[in-house]
């Protein structure tokens, strides 16, 4: 792997940028691997990278039915933060945010992390009370968070409708200053490039169509490019989790729904933070290109149609225009959807399964982008040791039968 650096840039500039090497290899699929990972999104690629880097396993394949990062990893609004509520979540997401803080150097790939701070707006007195409790709970766990008054927010986000007649009056809020956004494609590509250079075979356009299990153990997978033998199989397929797990006879407490996002035409810099309004399900930020990136809550019915319903688009935009009146005169440039994997408690599942050698990473739902570094590292550990990484022990599949849910859906509300 040729290292990216100012010197490499200069050298390649002299060659008219015609000689940059391929960022990752495109090898032929082999017939046997020590570990096979299904899904070439952020979680699958990161898992392969940490398996090779930390656990010294290099005979690994990542099988992706489409293209790298073509799933939710390339469709999200790229928000990272660690202000969840329960200690299990805070520990995990804080570890992940720290991972992001050093990821550019770790992968030698600029992920364009901008820690611009994430503001949550309280649009009622009651919401502000809940925010105080939430912000304090996070502080107690050693994660930065700070309650903001109405006036502070007015200066920080001049776009907000602060008039007396506002439909969604801003009562205050809280901020995690280390939260921010990064470039999601770069995260997928950076992990792919680093994993490939450690010997991982990344196979695109390769769909897993069956999983061979005998005597309760994984033996291999059937794919659109032939069969592959392996006795360790990791699954990180987001919205297709129940479809793929069923191939191994494993049922999951996951429902697939569409989550949408959209961007406006580009405008000059006018928004310095990510601003979320949990009660009205709308959050916005401004991309480096100047587009206003807008997201909201998931469509309410189960769906594998990767597009989203007009009702949800309208609901999000209604809220956006109410909160930020200047948006009403801007054009919407693009809208898209991703199929997200939602667990009953809105927390992830990183776990062994009843099938020996079958490991899963799912339930990332509307908020698993921020979890990619920690999700990859912990799934890799779980696969390599056939035992859960301490950070994800609480997030095992058996928590549902034990009644030990980690209900972030109720505690921290919508999560992106």
């Amino acid at each position, binding site marked *: 792997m040729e290292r990216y650096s100012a010197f490499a840039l200069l050298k390649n500039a002299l060659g008219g940028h015609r000689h940059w090497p391929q960022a990752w290899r495109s090898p032929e699929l082999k017939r046997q691997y020590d570990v096979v990972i299904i899904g070439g999104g952020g979680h699958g690629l990161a898992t392969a990278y940490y398996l090779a880097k930390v656990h010294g396993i290099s005979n690994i394949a990542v099988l992706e039915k489409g293209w790298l990062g073509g799933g939710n990893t390339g469709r999200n609004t790229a928000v990272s933060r660690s202000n969840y509520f329960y200690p299990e979540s805070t520990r995990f997401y804080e570890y992940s945010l720290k991972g992001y803080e050093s990821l550019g150097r770790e992968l030698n790939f600029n992920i364009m992390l901008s820690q611009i701070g994430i503001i949550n707006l309280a649009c009622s007195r009651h919401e502000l009370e809940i925010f105080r409790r939430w912000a304090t709970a996070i502080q107690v766990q050693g994660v930065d968070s700070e309650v903001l008054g109405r006036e502070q927010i007015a200066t920080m986000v001049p776009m907000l409708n602060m008039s007396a007649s506002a439909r969604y009056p801003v009562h205050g809020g809280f901020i995690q200053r280390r939260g921010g956004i990064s470039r999601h494609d770069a995260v997928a590509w950076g992990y792919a490039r680093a994993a490939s250079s450690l010997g991982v075979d990344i196979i695109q356009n390769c769909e897993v169509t069956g999983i061979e299990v005998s005597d309760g153990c994984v033996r291999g997978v059937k794919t659109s490019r032939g069969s592959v033998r392996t006795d360790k199989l990791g699954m990180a397929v987001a919205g297709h989790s129940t479809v793929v797990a069923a191939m191994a006879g494993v049922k999951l407490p*996951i429902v697939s729904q569409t989550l949408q996002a959209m961007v406006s035409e580009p405008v000059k810099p006018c928004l310095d933070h990510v601003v979320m309004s949990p009660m009205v399900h709308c959050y916005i930020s401004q991309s480096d290109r100047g587009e206003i990136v807008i997201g909201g809550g998931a469509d309410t019915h189960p769906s594998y149609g990767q597009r989203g319903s007009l009702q949800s688009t309208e609901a999000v935009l209604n809220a956006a225009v109410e909160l930020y009146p200047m948006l009403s005169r801007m054009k919407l440039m693009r809208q898209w959807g991703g199929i997200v994997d939602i667990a009953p408690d809105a927390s992830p599942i990183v776990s062994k399964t009843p099938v020996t050698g079958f490991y899963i990473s799912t339930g990332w739902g509307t908020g698993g982008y921020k979890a990619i570094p920690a999700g990859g590292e912990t799934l890799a550990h779980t696969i390599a040791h056939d035992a859960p990484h301490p950070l994800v022990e609480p997030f095992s599949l058996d928590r549902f039968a034990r009644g030990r849910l980690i209900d972030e859906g109720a505690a921290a509300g919508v999560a992106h």
Partner: protein
Amino acid sequence: MRIECPWCGSRSEDEFVCGGQSHIARPEPATASDAEWAAYLYQRDNPKGLHHERWLHRFGCGQWFNVARDTVSHNILASYPMTAPKPELPDANGGEA
């Protein structure tokens, strides 16, 4: 989507709320194991294709009813009262679970 309420006829999706999978039978609480109970509470079929689900006409007549819908195309194949049995319908996606 336009959804056919058995009482009000074809109405716009935004008048309705989806209540998830339908026809779920509750196991006997006294004898069900923890795993059976958890499956009853949390595990859903989540098919890629034909799905039988409950909808509430919240901003209409306020009634619950069932809908058979394709989760890929969102085509609605049937809509029927809460107590009616599950209709036999073709699955355009071959019933991938």
